[in-house]
């Protein structure tokens, strides 16, 4: 089961993070938080902070999947888990990029 987990963990983490940031966005918009720091609204700052955390988390996962201590003994599982690890990272960067680009709460 650990090998299945190695394959699934990175995209699963992306999915959880993606849903969480979407939910956070909804909560922040509903809460009516206002104010700015360095010309950037607090809502966007919080979302950007979460975005960076998610990316760092996915990078850490990729590193763990490559680490000999945690990697599978099966070369096939290593290959697939590395591939899905990168999928998780790229998906996080790409799908959550709107937090730095588009208008929020409108």
């Amino acid at each position, binding site marked *: 089961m650990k090998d299945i987990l190695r394959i699934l963990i990175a995209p699963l983490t992306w*999915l959880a993070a993606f*849903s969480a940031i979407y939910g956070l966005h909804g909560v922040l918009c509903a809460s009516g938080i206002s104010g700015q720091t360095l010309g950037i609204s607090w809502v966007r700052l919080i979302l950007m902070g979460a975005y960076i955390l998610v990316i760092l988390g996915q990078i850490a996962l990729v590193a763990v999947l490559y680490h000999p201590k945690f990697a*599978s003994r099966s070369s096939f599982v290593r290959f697939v888990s590395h591939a899905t690890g990168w*999928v998780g990272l790229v*998906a996080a960067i790409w799908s959550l990029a709107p937090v730095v680009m588009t*208008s929020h709460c409108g």
Partner: protein
Amino acid sequence: MKALERHRKLTTIWASEPGFRGWFSTVNHTDLGRMFLTTAFFFFIVGGLLAMLIRAQLATPHSAFAGAEIYNQIFTMHGTIMMFLFAIPTFEGLAIYLLPKILGSRDLAFPRLTAYGYWCYVFGGSMLLVAMVLGIAPEGGWFMYPPLSGPIHSPGINTDFWLIGITFVEISAIAAAVEITVSVLKYRAPGMSLDKMPIFAWYALITALMILTGFPPLILGSVLLELERAFGLPFFQVDLGGDSLLWQHLFWLFGHPEVYIIFLPAAGVISTVLPVMCRTPLLGYGWVVAAAVSLAFLSFGLWVHHMFTTGIPHMGLAFFSAASTLVAVPTGIQIFAWIGTMWKGKPDLRLPMLHILGFFCTFVIGGLTGVMVAVVPFDWQAHDTAFITAHLHYVLFGGFVFPIFAGLYYWLPHFTGRQRFFRLGEFAFALIFVGFHVTFLAMHWVGLLGQRRRIPTYAPEDGWTTINLISSVGSFVLAIGIAMVLLDVILHGLTFYRGPRNPWNAGTLEWAMTTPPPAYNFASLPHVTGREPLHDDPELPARLARGEGYLGTPKHDWRETLTVDIASGRPDMHVIYPGNTRLPIVMSAVTGLFFLSLLLKFYWTVPVAVAGVICLAWRWVWKQGRKDDLEPMSLGRGLKVANAAMSRRSPGWWGTAFLLTANATFFGSLLFGFAFLWTVAPGWPPPAWLAASPFELGAGLAGAVLSSGAMRHTMRTNRKGGKPVLGLILTLAGALAIAFACAALMTRAPAPVEHAYGATLLVLGGYGLFHACLAALMVVFLIARVRGGYTSSGRQAEFSIVTLWVDYAAVIGVLILLVAHASGFSS
């Protein structure tokens, strides 16, 4: 033992009852797979006829063919049947028939569950068909949006048929998903490590996991909407704290993964059939597995792209637009892997290959229009037009029907042991291909000209007349093509033209048996050393028939197989299956009585049905098990392993774990719904909050700690040979404390019919109460088993399974009570 003698003995042990009586008592996966597929194709024909009625209606302007009310029922039933009664059951049927054969096993993990799922599907589907015949079919579209489907705008019974019938059918999908997941992970031939699994098994595993996590949100949505319709709990009524957008979230949390749940098995068929047709191994096996896994996960991040026009903030739209474009990448990897396989091999243009080529043309177009509608400004223009209808048909017909026809013709010789004599199939393919593209290319066009989907008619001055007529003519050509496929298959069945055992020279294990397959699949189980065992060892079928594999000597009239370690494929357990029984059909009929009682509002029969299900479930489990410890079993070839009952991680434990995964998704969706209403719905705060009770909260939390702790202590005591009854009684007390706290929450939820807050607390409490009572019932069952002598320090499988349920009840009990009482404290 000679091969013929072995065959006769195994047939005696494994065969279903002869004649039509066997249909009702069989638990054999070959029988049930065929029954699933036949029933699914029956529904396909019904859904297809409804499509013809739609096209007849739209062929001319101001058509009087069907009135608007009937037309609404026709298109709703067309979508519902094709999605829920054809596509998913076809996957289930194919997987049920095929998996044990390609994995080198004798049956699926839980044969009675397979039968139960099949009969739930038949009864649930029949409910919908009866509604249609009576003219009271659902009429709110296959995604049944409230407020249109709510009690105010759809007061009749039509919508209830959809909500209750589909939920009943989804029991079948969940059952099959648990079955498939455990079977792929555990019921494989020795030596079949993850890298040696047939590619179809990977796709089936991924699809089953998607069903386990994708279907529960829809089941929840259906439950909530039915509660609103039947008892006035206002989850989707804006003026009472509900929000109809909650339905859309729950529906599309299911609905978008559903598209991939339909596509991925078809991709599995292509990845299996295409290399055989091209006479070369699949190019990039590892890449294809990684792409399929990625596609499955990404598909869960797309649901809002069906809601681009609902007024969601731009940033939310952009998240899902970005994720929607991303999904093209793993799809593209698979497409290129298939193209590379064709490039590397020598494609043989036989009938399955023609359908695969039809898939390529059609699905790629559907994928490209999918990228178009993933772009928000385009979607705003095309939303709810015939363009979208055309897009989804390109994806689903291209991505599912063509591959399934390829699979049908590929495995037809396996189903029947015969080869095709007449050549209608090639002509049928041409008609289907031309008819489909004429129909739906035209529909793209008329959609871009502004024709809305689901309109019953239009005026001549709209300028859509010619295009609609072309589309309708195309659809009838398509229908003739499909009728010819049906005729071809019937002729195939009637023509006794014996075919060779492996007509395609394929390398996978399903061709290592005689065809049509014997009830036991393999006379002895193979040891696998590669992905294509028949190419590695062409003598394998003969050696297996001679009993040179595992479990080659039938004993005690047991239906035996073995399980393996998930990663390595090393044998780890010996399994004895149950025999033929009518228990599944009886239990699904009683389950049907429960749903029918709700539908017809005969509430006095609901407890009768619940009691019936409990009694039958009790009997179901009670019949399993032994009163003596089994020594490690000899599997042959010098290998001995313990029986599953002696293991803490028995197949039942794995099945429970995956069932609870689906259950947890349901619960997570419920919490999401609560949070969504609280933060997004306009009618909040509620007029009254729950008065938090430290006593009830404390009792529930203490019960959770007690039940979980006592159950663990009981397991340890049993393992050491001690008496477990006292620990079980403490566990029972803990579960009852959780039940008390949840029941108290239900009784004190503030005015559930007046605001969605109270309604949600009521449902949360009900969910907790149900699981606490279920855990308590299981503990009582376990006490009875201990007293009956069915457990010992060695036979511990049942303790592990009950522990999972007790822990689950404890965890959700704690979460429910914390969420509910915290809302009271915070107010």
